[in-house]
């Protein structure tokens, strides 16, 4: 005889619970958390190097870096005197809350104002997994093409800020800023946008101001 059983919880409920635990811990320790996501090679690590320099003496920054293999990104950021934890995901193409927890164990006792989690380079999977962050930030480099928001709508739907990177290369590539922004805002009308170049420094000030503003808001929560 067949019996039908109803199921009450979502498939990602385990992750949502772990993310909620992290959110409470971040709040208790007064740490603002940014989940930085992009495709591979958009320039997340280079931006974090510039960010570490810019924030030196202004607030206590920590970084957790997710990669399938190697600690190259973590090594690069650590050179700037910022506490860094490498999270090797093994075969996973994204970070989830369970993977971020050991990094939080290590970094939160240091009394950070801001923790930036550099997710695995991937415009698909990381969008599905909450990690207890205050804000998701997606980065799109002009060399990837303006069609990415239309091709990966979920990533741009869940993000609060879109960074358009490598704008120093705009004269050399066919990238329509208007099209990229219009597509990204189709399912996310409130999406904020900052265009920047980690190489020339253009747009870095608005990015740093955005981080400081987010941190101030997190303090008031």
């Amino acid at each position, binding site marked *: 005889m*067949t019996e039908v059983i109803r*199921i009450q919880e*979502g*498939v990602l409920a*385990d*992750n949502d619970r772990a993310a909620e635990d992290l959110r409470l811990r971040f709040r208790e320790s007064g740490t603002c958390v940014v989940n930085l996501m992009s495709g591979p090679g958009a320039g997340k690590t280079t931006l974090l190097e510039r960010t570490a320099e810019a924030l030196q003496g202004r607030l206590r920054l920590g970084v957790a870096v997710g990669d399938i293999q190697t600690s190259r990104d973590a090594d690069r950021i650590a050179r700037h005197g910022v506490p860094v934890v490498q999270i090797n995901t093994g075969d996973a193409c994204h970070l989830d809350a369970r993977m971020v927890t050991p990094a939080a164990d290590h970094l939160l006792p240091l009394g950070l104002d801001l923790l930036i989690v550099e997710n695995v380079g991937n415009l*698909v*999977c990381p969008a599905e997994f909450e990690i207890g962050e205050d804000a998701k930030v997606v980065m799109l480099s002009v060399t990837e093409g303006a069609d990415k928001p239309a091709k990966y709508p*979920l990533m741009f739907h869940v993000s609060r800020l879109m960074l358009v990177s490598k704008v120093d290369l705009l004269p050399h590539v066919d990238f329509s800023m208007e099209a990229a922004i219009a597509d990204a805002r*189709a399912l996310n009308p409130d999406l904020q946008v900052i265009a920047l170049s980690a190489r020339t420094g253009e747009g870095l000030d608005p990015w740093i101001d955005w981080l400081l503003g987010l941190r101030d808001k997190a303090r008031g929560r």
Partner: protein
Amino acid sequence: MHEVAVAQQMLEVIRRTLEGRPPVRVRVARLVLGQLTCVDPETLSFAFEVACRGTAAEGCRLEVERVPLRVRCTACGAEEERGDPMAPCERCGDRRGEVVAGRELQLTTLDVEEHGP
């Protein structure tokens, strides 16, 4: 390619659902999957079949119900399905909208049979 992780979580949800019940075999598992959710149904079906091996859900059928993307237009408030997430509002032509449905990733029901000795 996080379908393997999703399949393992589905199996975990099934395991918890069956906990404390007399032994059963799962014949059908039903999943609702929003259009905007970044999960490929075919890859998920394969990953789920592999994940189920050696469990009470081994050999079960996975029925996937796709939920279309529904958007409420930011400009005129009209609510409509959007096959193409980037398509403009059919009523006023504005492209900006709030997502009303299409993010689902939820197991809804299991068909189970008693697992006799």
